[in-house]
């Protein structure tokens, strides 16, 4: 009788093809939610970036109110020469390795709204009192490399993103 949550990813044209509950959600050199990152690693020797990644939290179930929604990452600087950037967006752009233009992804919380539009691609409102189904504005992220990055393709310490909200 409270809300339930699933995470979705948007891929393809305007990042509008939605898949849910994927195990593969690493930053990588391909725009999908299935290919292992080891098969399509970011080309760090040319200081490339990952494809931009769009993720959104989807609420289902019953609630009296949901409000004060924020999104954040645990750490936006995983290694020297690497930066994780991101922002809350109200529309999707076809994912690419071009620098997204976003600032370092917040570790304390970016405010987001709620909307019934898939992937949260609409302005939405800051609270919901209508149970059923609703999406949080999408979080666009990108792992960027810089000229100072000395590592090759491979693992970085696993990162987490969190959606926080108040619910009654």
């Amino acid at each position, binding site marked *: 009788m409270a809300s339930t949550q699933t995470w979705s990813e948007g891929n393809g044209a305007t990042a509008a093809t939605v898949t849910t509950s994927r195990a593969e959600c690493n930053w990588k050199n391909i725009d999908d939610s299935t290919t292992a990152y080891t098969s399509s690693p970011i080309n760090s020797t040319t200081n490339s970036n990952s494809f931009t990644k769009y993720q959104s939290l989807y609420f289902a179930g019953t609630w009296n109110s949901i409000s004060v929604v924020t999104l954040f990452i645990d750490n936006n600087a995983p290694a020297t020469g690497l930066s994780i950037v991101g922002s809350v967006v109200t529309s999707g752009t076809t994912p690419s390795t071009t620098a997204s233009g976003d600032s370092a992804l917040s570790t304390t919380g970016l405010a987001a709204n709620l909307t019934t539009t898939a992937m949260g691609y609409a302005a939405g409102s800051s609270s919901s009192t209508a149970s059923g189904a609703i999406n949080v504005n999408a979080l666009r992220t990108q792992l960027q490399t810089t000229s100072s990055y000395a590592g090759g393709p491979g693992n970085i310490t696993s990162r987490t993103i969190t959606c926080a909200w108040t*619910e*009654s």
Partner: protein
Amino acid sequence: MSLPLDTSCQAEYEDGFILDETELNDYSPYTTDPEHPDNILRSILKKHPEAEHGKMVRFSVFWKDKKYDVDWVGLPDNARPIRFRHNRSTRDLDTGEIYFWQAGVDFGYQYTDESGKNVQEIQEIR
């Protein structure tokens, strides 16, 4: 009886009846439309039990094996319970695993007094 879950609520009424969110798995016995069931907090807010059990005398929430009470006796009839859960959903971007967790709960009461002034008292429990 189940140990009340963190952030869950409970209400006690004049005849001793207790409406417990955890015990009822958050499904209100006062639901009239099974397709759209009420949860426990909604039934407390709508005062569903009061016709049978008298006025609410206590509103409580639970957090880390402690119970926090609001003595409802003496509060005006238009007082409403407040209970906001601070929920989190964290996704591990390596494994895709999702962890639901709670950072705390805010609870208390709110009412509008005779002069139209909003009166509320909220305790942040972490």
